[in-house]
Every structure is written in C-alpha cells, then in structure tokens.
C-alpha cells in the first residue's frame, strides 16, 4: 500500500509551533495524517489546532502519545539535534524537512541512526506522501491520487510537477517520496528502490534524479538485477555547468563525474528509459506498462 508508513504510523512534529511547522502540520492534519503530538521546548502543555498536545521533548511526546514517526521543521542549526532526539526517543522513522543543514552534522548523526535502526528521510526534502494513508512533510496533497506507481525523487517542485502529470493521466501513486537534495541523506535512491520493490502494492516506478553523485547509477544496477516492474527515469540538470552548485547542495558536477549524461547512460544500459522532458514520463510509463 505504501513504503515506510502504515496504519500504525503515529506522527510527532518537531517544531510544531514554528511558522513552517504549524503551517504544514495543519496540512498533514487536513490530509488525515495521524498527527498525535508536537514538540517545542518551553511550550509543553499547549495544544496545536485544538487537538494535538505539545510537549517539551520528543521523549515525553513518545511516552504520552505512542508517537513512532517524527517530522522535523526546526531551523538548520538545530536540525541534527532534533534528529538525535527523535531517534533517541524511539521514533523509527524521522523525516527532516529542514533545508540548509550543515553536511558534517548529518555525517555525525548517521551512525547514531544506524545503531538504533532508525530510518531518516532527508534532510532538505519535501518528505513523503502515501495517498490515502499519511502525509509526512510538505508535498501538496491536492496533486496526488491513490494508485500503484512508486515515485522517488531528489527534488521538490519537480516532483510535484511529475506527480501532477501522473495524476492527470490517471496514474495514481502508492507513495511519493522526496529524499532530498543534500549530499548526505538518510534514505538513498537505492533504499527507496529496494523498499518499493518489496512493496506488493507498487507496480511501477518513477525515478527523478539530478546531477551530482552516483545514486542513480547505483539504483540502476540494482534495478537491472533485482526489479521486475516497469521503471522510468528523469534526470534534471543536463545543461548545468560543471563545478557550480545548482541550488541543492548535492546538485553539482565535480571532476567530470555526476553528469546527467553519465546517469542517463547508466540507466539506459540497465534497460530503464530516461525521459528527455518531464512530460514524457507519463507516456514512457504507459509504454512500459504496455
């Protein structure tokens, strides 16, 4: 039905009283997400949207509400700290929306998560939207539709663009996942592909990559060897000049590696058609699905 979330998901939002946190928490509630708690140190005892209790710490929130999933909206200097806190409190899934987190903060937190078997999505990501189940993050709920296509992306609005096209073409989604545009992220392309491959309700896959790194190449190898369902890809940044950071901290071609051409080549070599234009994804997918 979805990856990473299910009917037992109970969400706590860290930074629920902040500008972005409160806005998107409302959006999550509106979508019917089981948002059971919020955290803002010093605001413990308050109530968000007349129904969600706010706590000083995630540990308290987990203890009182049984939250098992955190969505983080705290500012960059405190984002990694929030991830430690969520993991330590026993959250199994942590979605860090915050953009601009220092890379070495993420390097440091990674083994802490691995030791505890905690999955992180992000940072610098739109989060996850499993149509009909839960919205964890900032993806617009209006563009999704329940269905069988799994989508994983390093982008935000480009993802929405593609999801919107899928929805308009009648291709619903099992889960739309934005893994984030930073160099060091919790859940990688590969992790997402593996999870989709293991999800009986996902019957086709859309990968939206971009320049920088080799996550797409690795996923392509894995798909060729292990994934049977139709897969279509798109790579943003074919015209990006080398050595320049294209918005995302991770979107940069360095030393001639991480180019869109390399990625396209690797994907096509693995039998995965790569759309030249975002709008071609739908038709390629329809063709793949026969």
């Amino acid at each position, binding site marked *: 039905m979805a990856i990473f979330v299910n009917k037992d998901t109970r969400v706590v939002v860290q930074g629920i009283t902040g500008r972005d946190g409160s806005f998107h928490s409302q959006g999550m509630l509106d979508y019917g997400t089981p948002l059971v708690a919020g955290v803002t140190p010093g605001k413990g005892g308050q109530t968000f949207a007349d129904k969600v209790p706010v706590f000083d710490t995630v540990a308290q929130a987990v203890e009182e509400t049984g939250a098992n999933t955190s969505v983080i909206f705290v500012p960059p200097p405190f984002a990694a700290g929030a991830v430690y806190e969520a993991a330590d409190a026993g959250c199994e899934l942590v979605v860090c929306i915050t953009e601009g987190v220092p*890379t*070495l903060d993420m390097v*440091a937190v990674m083994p802490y998560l691995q030791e505890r078997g905690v999955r992180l999505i992000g940072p610098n990501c739109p989060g996850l939207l499993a149509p009909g189940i839960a919205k964890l993050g900032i993806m617009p709920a209006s563009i999704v539709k329940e269905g069988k296509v799994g989508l994983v992306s390093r982008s935000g609005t*480009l993802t929405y*663009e593609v999801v919107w096209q899928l929805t308009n073409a009648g291709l619903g989604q099992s889960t739309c996942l934005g893994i984030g545009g930073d*160099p*060091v992220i919790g859940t990688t392309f590969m992790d997402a592909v593996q999870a989709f491959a293991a999800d009986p309700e996902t019957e086709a896959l859309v990968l939206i990559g971009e*320049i920088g790194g080799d996550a797409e190449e690795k996923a392509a190898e894995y798909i060729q060897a292990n994934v049977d369902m139709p897969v279509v890809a798109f790579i943003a940044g074919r015209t990006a000049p080398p050595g320049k950071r294209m918005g995302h901290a991770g*979107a940069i071609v360095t030393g001639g590696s991480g180019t869109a051409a390399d990625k396209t080549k690797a994907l096509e070599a693995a039998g995965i058609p790569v759309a030249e234009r975002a709008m071609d994804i739908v038709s390629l997918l329809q063709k793949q699905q026969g």
Partner: protein
Amino acid sequence: MNIHEYQGRDVFRQHGLPVPPGKVADSADKAVAIAKELGLPVMVKAQVLTGGRGKAGGVKFCATIEDVEENARNIVGMDIKSHTVRKVLVTPAVDIAEEFYLGMLVDRRSGRVHVMASAEGGVEIEQVAKDNPEAIVHHAIDPRYGLLDHEALGLGLKLYPTDIKKARQLGSALQKIYTAFVAADASLAEINPWIFTTKGEGLAIDAKINLDDNALFRHPNYEELRDRLSEDPSERQAREADLSFVKLQGNVGCLVNGAGLAMATMDLVKYYGGQPANFLDIGGSSNPEKVVNALRIILQDDEVKAILFNIFGGITRCDDVARGIIEATGQLDIKVPIVVRLTGTNEEEARALLAGTDLVPAATMDEAVQKAIELAGNA
C-alpha cells in the same frame, strides 16, 4: 564557498600543519618587499579560485628580486580560466625531494569524510584516478572516532612503506587535515603537493579548502574570507539576496521555484533549441521582494531577451504567486516579454489575474518554454 590558497594555509596552520611562511601582495612592489623580507629564492603564486594555475603560468620560481618583480607584474591581472588574478602569494621556495597528494572530501556514498591520498603528488587527483586508480589510498573516517592513530599510520605506511618516520608524518598530517576539516566545516580539503624536502622535512606546499555553505552560520569570521571581487557580480548579488543563482550564457532568463524544477526548465529551454541565461531558484514563497531582486539580477544581463517564470504552485496558492509576480514586475521598468506558467492550486484564478496584464500566460512548462524561446528570438 571556496577560499584562496593563502587563506587555506592559515586554516591548516591553525590546526598544526607545517606550512611555510608567506604573504600575499596585490602589486609587484609589494611582492618584492615580501621577497626581501623572506629571503630568496621564493615562489610567486597566483591566488585564484580555479585549478591549472601552473599550466597557465601563474606559479613561478624566482631566484632574484628581478624575477620576483617581473613575475609578480605578469601574474597580477592575469586571466586564468576567466578568473582575474588579483593577488599573489610570495613564499620561500623549498627544496622538494618528494611530492604527495593528501585530500579529504565528504563522500556521498559512505556519508563520511573520505580520505584520498596518493604518492603521485603535484598532479590533479582526477588525473591520477583516471590513469592509475590503484595509486590512490582511500579511507572513510568514522565520525564517532575520528581518524584513529593506527588508521593514520596505516595510511602513512601505504603512502610510504619504507620509511616509518615519513609514514608517521604523513599519517599525522592526515589527522590534522581532518581536524581542520571538521573545525572549518569543509566540504573539501586538499594539500597538493605535500612535500618532503631533501632533509626529510614534511611541508604543506599548497592548500585548497572548500567550505560548506550550509555551515557558514557557524563561522561568521569566514565571511571576510570571501573574495567578492572574484565572484560574478550577479551571483554575488543573488547570494546577498538569498537566491540560488548561476549565471549562464543565454537569452532566456529563468525564474523557477525549486532547484530540480529550475534545472529541468533550463534543460527544456535547451531541448527546444533555446539558451537559458541562468539557473535561478526563487524558493517556496511568493514574496514580491524576492521576485523583484531576482528580476533585477537577471535584467542586468543585456543578453536576456525574454523572461520565463515556471512556478509549480503546490502548497502556495497560484493566485497568491500571480499577485506577487504582478506586483514585482510593476516595480520595475521591464522591456522584455515575460512568460508566466503557474500550475497547481488555484491555477485558474491565477490565469485570470494575469489576463489583465502584459504577462504572457502559459498552461504547461512545455508551452511556457516554447513561448519564451520564440519571444526571445523575435526580440
């Protein structure tokens, strides 16, 4: 953010790496004065935020004061890969017996700081990686433990198996580079070459450090390391306005919300035979001020003949965004046509708003791009 060699040397020196003395000069006269102070022979080295200085003639050995004067005069003002050299570093020339490459970067795969080092120093590591990949020693540093002594010595011994003293020096240098890397919130740190003199003394002869832009808030003092003069003026303005912007050579100015969509938009301009003038992510808000700043920066480029807004409304309602664009464009005297594509929540209302303006509406990204290219071509 990239910093100059002389600034990187300071960072390394602060963390205990052996760095020869040296000072920067912005004129031949000053270079001569420094050389006299340091004593001959010296190296005069272009301080420029790009590689390939040596090949371009930006690094010179000077045996005499006349050499210093001549070389400094030639190098200051020199153009290296479109970067103008404004300063030279004057530093004692040392007696090089052996050269090594010592570097670290954040590795996406392992999620760790990754050591790359090679006994083939003085060459670009990318070249070594291509020609002789097994000459590169790799190690991913566990952030919980840092670069442990035995790991450092093990790397040192791989680089120099026959001399424990030099192996220890190399290992210790790597530990100090790592300390500097973490303290500075670097994304890349390189010493190329690390050298041994004929007497066996280890020295960091070059220094390259890139800083993580996301971590600059922790290092307010680094702001003064920024070389504003070497930045593209429009990129500097964009940075100061908190916009992600990259200048390109083209005639279609692009304003997009979101980095991925911005790249896809550029790609689509190219796909339809046009040339994007820039990458620009205006972020998630419909804040007119941000749009004004973005437009102002793009319009400084005389090559820009049409402007393309590609906005996926998403959470933000499209009619709000449309109002922001209308307000922003109203504040400026814009002579080029503007194509606006708005999709998502309240898309219809947005299009109705645009109908009363000079702005050219478009329903899809493809349509918008094609219209913008056409309008730019007609200009």
